């Protein structure tokens, strides 16, 4: 007999019922799996067997470290917490040591201000650090040291990304925003301190992973850029991965210098994001030639600017174009150019009123 198309009807035979009855027992078992276990833990949850083999491996590794590595002061990875937060080694480029706790009430807290390196004008110096350590803080108020990771790979990428983060935008996150940390919707929020050592000094950066708004600070310089996600990933893997190329959806948080010039420095490329006629949800990205890049940059930089309010007054049916100016190192500058909304040009930090010439130029590229 070949069954009819009816899941549990007249064709439901004894085998089906037996299977279904056996499977239904699963409904009465306490499985102890939750969505938070999965989504809050990007790394695989290990099975019991794997736990056992991993534990055995870690035990062997710990014995090796205890015998051969721990006696060497330069490599003492376990000395967390004692002021002045430097490892016992006296050399200038030794790894920083994580404080055991961070004050609950203090937003943007770092153990010490930048020492021997530039920390006023940017989040981190424009140089690759010798060492980077990430301290994670958990617990109900994110005050207790939960773990430490040395970033072993990707230090140039770390420097490139953090060096060029912008100053806070109007309406953007201001500093770490501890309240948003504690109220974060993410299942496993965490606060982080990044300790960076250089040949002539050191610097701490505080940030948090909240699933929401949390900027970063070195105690003096603040940014509204949200870096909690990348820091979390680096903490979990020991690698700082260079960000992927910007898309129309993921444009980053801007770039240092955009508070002074609409398109600062020397971008190496520009792409235009726009809504094609009839497409209301997804923007299309179009690359512009090197000549077009210079034309657009010069034209945008020619307009008189003022501090951005990140808003504009709309007339009928405004059209928005997003220009993504990319650089050799660090995040892009994103400039919004509007037809039918004044101020027409906005990079998040600065605005300019007249976008007529820029819109004409952009439309020319899109028609080409």
């Amino acid at each position, binding site marked *: 007999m070949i*069954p009819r*198309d009816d*899941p549990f009807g007249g064709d439901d035979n004894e085998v*089906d019922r037996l299977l279904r009855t*056996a499977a239904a027992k699963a409904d009465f078992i306490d499985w102890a799996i939750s*969505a938070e276990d999965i989504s809050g833990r990007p790394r695989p949850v290990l099975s019991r067997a794997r736990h056992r083999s991993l534990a055995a491996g870690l035990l062997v590794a710990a014995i090796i470290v205890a015998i051969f590595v721990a006696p060497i002061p330069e490599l003492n990875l376990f000395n967390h917490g004692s002021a002045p937060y430097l490892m016992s080694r006296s050399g200038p480029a030794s790894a920083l040591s994580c404080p055991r706790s961070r004050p609950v009430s203090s937003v943007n807290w770092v153990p010490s201000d930048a020492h021997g390196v530039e920390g006023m004008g940017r989040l981190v110096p424009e140089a690759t650090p010798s060492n980077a350590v990430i301290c994670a803080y958990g617990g109900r108020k994110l005050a207790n040291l939960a773990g430490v990771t040395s970033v072993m790979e990707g230090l140039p990428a770390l420097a490139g990304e953090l060096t060029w983060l912008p100053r806070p935008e109007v309406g953007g996150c201001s500093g770490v925003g501890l309240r948003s940390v504690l109220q974060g919707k993410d299942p496993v929020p965490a606060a982080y301190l990044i300790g960076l050592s250089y040949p002539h000094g050191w610097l701490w950066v505080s940030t948090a992973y909240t*699933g929401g708004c949390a900027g970063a600070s070195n105690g003096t310089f603040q940014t509204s850029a949200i870096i909690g996600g990348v820091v979390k990933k680096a903490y979990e893997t020991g690698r700082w991965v260079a960000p992927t190329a910007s898309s129309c959806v993921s444009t980053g948080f801007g770039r240092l210098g955009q508070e002074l010039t609409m398109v600062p420095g020397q971008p190496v490329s520009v792409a235009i994001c726009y809504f094609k006629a009839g497409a209301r949800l997804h923007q299309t990205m179009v690359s512009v030639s090197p000549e077009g890049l210079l034309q657009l940059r010069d034209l945008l930089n020619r307009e008189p600017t003022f501090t951005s309010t990140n808003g504009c007054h709309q007339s009928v049916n405004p059209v928005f174009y997003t220009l993504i100016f990319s650089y050799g190192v660090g995040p892009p500058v994103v400039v919004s150019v509007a037809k039918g909304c004044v101020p027409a040009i906005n990079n998040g930090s600065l605005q300019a009123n007249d976008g007529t010439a820029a819109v004409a130029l952009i439309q020319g590229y899109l028609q080409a």
Partner: protein
Amino acid sequence: MLLDVRGVIAEETDMRSSQAGDFERFFAAANPSLLRQAYVYTGNVDEARDLVQETFLRTWRNWERVSRLEDPDAWARKVLHNLAVGWWRQRRTRRKYAALTIGARDQSDTDVHDIASALISLPEKERRVLVSHAVVGLSISEIAAELGASEGTVRVWLSRARAALATELKLTPARQTKRGDQR
């Protein structure tokens, strides 16, 4: 009218927490069915738990893509089935060298353990069709669409699977189709 042109950034900021929320909803809806499937596949609570955990982990890692699919449940079912196939292969290999049967039996697993041991003897497609139909509750047409096979083929697979399982479990033969009859 004042427009907030930072809307795109705000959306991006909220995206992660929104994704986690979507995943939690998916998890809550898909979890019971996946656990039931894994339980009959393995016949063992611990093994089933591991398979389902791994399924959800893979789903979460690919959530940005999976959440846009028309049927994320089907994607998760396929992952679970593929994981189960790997698990069965391991068991078969072990059985070749030692008289091991499926998983470790415990008191509460008696029926399901026998069923899992019988399921392992079925060809992969037949096993999947039978579990999709009897445990998940998918119709023939839904299974056909999921497997990219014709409904007629699915019916044949289902019929063979039932007959083979009935034989393995020593059910009354009169009610079941003999395996060879459909070939």
